[in-house]
């Protein structure tokens, strides 16, 4: 990307919620996943993240499961951004906030991540109180039990 270099990221509600629920499900471990999106048609400096796919919650740095998961990810996603490290500033910001106040992530200077729908945090708090994070399954879970779908299709119904 040309221009002023720094990309901004706009994350959709579902992608954001899935991401947070995934890390809540595995409170005692680091998690990673893939954010999927595309360059905004309106503004080249903005990447719109439309979905997130939770991948792993153990042994994040090992190649074979990571390779398989990326191969299995559907090619119809326009641009896959693998953002393993990206998740940690987001999570640290949320997790350190021990009270249930989930702040808009944009305050962390390093990540330039903005919520597309500001109501996302409200929906998120609802989900947290109903322990929705128990329903999130990631690719790691899939490898242990292939009946589990890492794309979480029914999560928001």
């Amino acid at each position: 990307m040309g221009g002023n270099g720094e990309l901004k990221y706009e994350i959709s509600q579902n992608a954001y919620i899935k991401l947070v629920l995934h890390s809540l499900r595995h409170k005692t471990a680091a998690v990673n996943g893939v954010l999927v999106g595309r360059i905004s048609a309106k503004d080249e400096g903005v990447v719109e993240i439309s979905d997130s796919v939770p991948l792993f919650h153990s042994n994040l740095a090992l190649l074979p499961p990571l390779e398989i998961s990326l191969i299995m990810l559907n090619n119809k996603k326009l641009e896959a951004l693998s953002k393993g490290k990206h998740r940690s500033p987001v999570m640290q910001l949320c997790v350190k906030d021990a009270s249930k106040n989930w702040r808009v992530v944009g305050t962390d200077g390093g990540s330039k991540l903005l919520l597309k729908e500001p109501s996302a945090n409200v929906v998120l708090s609802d989900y947290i109180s109903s322990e929705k994070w128990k329903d999130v399954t990631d690719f790691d879970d899939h490898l242990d039990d292939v009946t589990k779908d890492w794309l979480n299709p029914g999560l928001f119904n």
Partner: protein
Amino acid sequence: MVTKTEETELNQLENQVENGGGGVWEYLCLVRKLKVRRSELVLKHGLSILNDPGKRSALGPDEWTLYEQVAIAAMDCQSLAVAQNCIKVLQKKFPESKRVGKIEALLLEAKGMWEEAEKAYSILLEDNPLDQVIHKRKVAMAKAQGKPSLAIEHLNKYLEVFMADHDAWRELAEIYVSLQMYKQAAFCYEELILSQPTLPLYHLAYAEVLYTIGGHENLIAARKYYASTIDLTGGKSTRALLGICLCGSAIAQLSKGRNKEDKDMAAPELQSLAATALEKEYKQKAPAKLNLLSSALRSLKL
């Protein structure tokens, strides 16, 4: 590590307890015995017993064990006030106790008061230099403070003395992997396989580390360990089956332009056997994903 039967029993009790079916004390005892981490539930149900004087006195001398268990669970859930209260009760009942001293130090850790916790542990270690739990707390503190190299240093020293502690070897391996020090991680898994050669978990982990390091020989070795995992799990390990396919593909790629011997190492029969087993599994259990799997396997066949 927990066996499948133990896990089933635990889950059953957990469901029962959560749905008001009683069995709380059995559940808490099982959690303690298996040393699993179920802190939220322990806190919730443990407190329900402790806060009820009738139930509490029914426990007899086990009451104090429960206080200890709940204190630790509370710390894991960051309910430091609850933990503090439990500890106070224990301190009153057992003044000067080393066991209570350990929990006090744990509370310092939970509060993030690292220096004070270090001091407390050092004092405890003076009287009992071979206390494994305290040594492991030092590793945990290093990890919590984001000092993985210090954690590694402590763990290595620990393992010089307690070299049969498999959990410690696993922990060390995982820290190495997180730092991308794969060769060192491989060494740990080698130790584990030597001491417990029939545990498929170690074969699998070793294979994955070898694959990650890469290179022709490591890939061949990785494939061997994926194969032994399949052997040890009766063909049920999806990860190992996928690993075989990945190895086959990677070896074939590396073998391009090499001499015939190396090409023979491609072992296409092994790869197609694994692929067939995988497709069968997906067909039975996850038919919606079968196409995805098949195209993934096709892309691996080069």
